[in-house]
């Protein structure tokens, strides 16, 4: 640990940043873990991120001082917890560019947020012959709901292909996005290639044809400053657990007019206005989409994660990740037999670095790295169709976040060099 921090201080690329990486690392208790004699090197951030002490403490504090069910209570704890829960909503609305808090719906995660749209807006608006446009780099969460909806409604699923460099291939875009397009569903940042997609541009095109646009921001909001209004999208989904917050919390942003016109999703308490045995009317936004007791404690604690990110500054975070991604790509590229997926230019990508070895299966890579305390992910990353397009059965993926440093990359690179020797290659 000591050693690593020293390395950091000597590193010009990161040392120039207005962030104090040593202090940041100290905020994450798990990073001190020794696993089988190795210091943990956590490079599986695209799967989920670690939590700073302030987030963990917010959960503790909530349960120790404020826990109650929200919205209907007329007692102190219920008032406090409602206020805290709604405070996070306001904070989220602000964090994604200053939308109306009524447009912020809490879900379990990105997956539920997208399914909510499919089950409500999709169910009512997609008709036979309509076209749904997705991209070839979608995560299953932004793919399977649309495949199934298209099948059910006899709609047509069209896709924007990718180039060899891992960008969206827009050469035939005007044949793909047309007046038949009812929905464009695309990821803001790929969880396999790291590619940052031109969401604003494609949204403008889709809007010209009157389509609705949903962007999957699971990998974008944690790493980029996102302003959903300037993107112009109708729906935007992301997950707390990928941005320092607790598991079990996701966000669906939706434009008010659309949300108001949609039928509700999970039905039960809090989302109704009046119920008789033969007629039900719905509550106003956002309650209409939050039936049942929500994940109150974790929504409350997510506020602390947003604060933490704001304190660092999303621009500083992005700069740090660009520097580190550049460093990583440079050093990984120098390893014989290793192939890196996705764009090379760090301006066009995030810190998700998928790679393969000519001879070794990603699972063996991952198991080997694990024996050195290095956590990466290996597999199809919930993007099976993309794997076949890349011609890979799987990839290994190292993914960065704000607390990673050059020492982490050095450890990865060193281990990968030793790996081929271990397997006798």
């Amino acid at each position, binding site marked *: 640990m000591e050693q690593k921090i020293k390395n950091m201080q000597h590193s010009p690329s990161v040392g120039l940043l207005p962030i104090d990486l040593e202090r940041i690392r100290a905020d994450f208790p798990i990073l001190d873990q020794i696993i089988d004699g190795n210091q943990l090197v956590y490079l599986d951030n695209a799967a989920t991120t670690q939590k700073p002490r302030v987030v963990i403490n917010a959960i503790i504090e909530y349960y120790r001082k404020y826990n109650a069910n929200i919205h209907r209570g007329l007692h102190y704890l219920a008032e406090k917890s409602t206020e805290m829960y709604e405070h996070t909503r306001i904070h989220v609305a602000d964090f994604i560019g200053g939308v109306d808090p009524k447009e912020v719906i809490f879900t379990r995660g990105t997956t539920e947020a997208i399914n909510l749209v499919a089950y409500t807006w999709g169910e009512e608006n997609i008709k036979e012959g309509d076209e749904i446009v997705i991209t070839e780099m979608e995560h299953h969460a932004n793919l399977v709901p649309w495949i199934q909806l298209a099948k059910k409604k006899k709609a047509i699923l069209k896709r924007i292909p990718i180039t060899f460099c891992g960008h969206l291939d827009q050469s035939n875009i005007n044949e793909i996005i047309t007046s038949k397009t009812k929905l464009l569903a695309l990821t803001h940042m790929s969880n396999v290639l790291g590619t940052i997609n031109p969401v604003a541009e494609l949204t403008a095109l889709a809007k010209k044809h009157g389509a609705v646009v949903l962007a999957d921001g699971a990998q974008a909001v944690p790493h980029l400053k996102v302003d959903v209004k300037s993107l112009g999208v109708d729906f935007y989904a992301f997950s707390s657990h990928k941005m320092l917050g607790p598991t079990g919390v996701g966000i669906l942003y939706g434009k008010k007019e659309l949300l108001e016109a949609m039928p509700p999703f999970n039905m039960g308490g809090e989302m109704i206005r009046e119920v008789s045995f033969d007629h039900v009317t719905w509550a106003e936004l956002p309650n209409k989409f939050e039936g049942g007791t929500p994940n109150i404690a974790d929504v409350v604690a997510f506020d602390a994660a947003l604060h933490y990110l704001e304190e660092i500054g999303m621009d500083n975070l992005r700069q740090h990740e660009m520097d580190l991604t550049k460093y990583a790509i440079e050093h990984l590229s120098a390893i014989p037999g290793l192939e890196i997926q996705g764009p090379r230019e760090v301006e066009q990508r995030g810190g998700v670095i998928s790679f393969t070895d000519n001879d070794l299966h990603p699972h063996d890579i991952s198991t080997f790295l694990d*024996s050195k305390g290095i956590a990466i992910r290996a597999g*199809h990353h919930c993007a099976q169709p993309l794997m076949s397009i890349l011609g890979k059965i799987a990839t290994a993926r190292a993914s960065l976040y704000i607390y990673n440093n050059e020492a982490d990359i050095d450890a990865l690179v060193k281990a990968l060099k030793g790996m081929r020797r271990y397997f006798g290659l």
Partner: protein
Amino acid sequence: MSGSLDEMYRDIILDHYRSPRGHEPLPMADFSTGGHNPSCGDELKLAVKIEDDMVKDIYIDCKGCAISTASGSMLAEVLKGKSIAEAKKIAAIVRGMLKGEDVEIPEDLGDIDALEGVKKFPVRIKCALLAWVTFMEGMENYENGSGEATTTSVE
């Protein structure tokens, strides 16, 4: 990790991985079948030549990790020359062993007990299983007279 690396990647496993047995094409196979592990992407092709109720020859090709490749290679080595009954029995024993059942590996199975190290890595067990369950299913189809090639999946 739950076990030490060398427990899984024993020398025998690495040897099978580097030079897998059963790689010679088998054009006159009596049945051929495929295996698939969707969560890993591993894919396996298996062809078997039967003669006089014996597993005369085996072709196996695995696009997968060291464990699934080595496991398939061991299968080819061990089952070749066995009677159908014996081969089925051995495959069932290996499957049972990998699934943590209380089975004993006969001594004469050579390298196969090297697969036991995989049990300490729960996520990798299905890699080791793939070849064996694919063989079992293929054999069953063959015996039932269904000549069609199927795909066996492990999850």
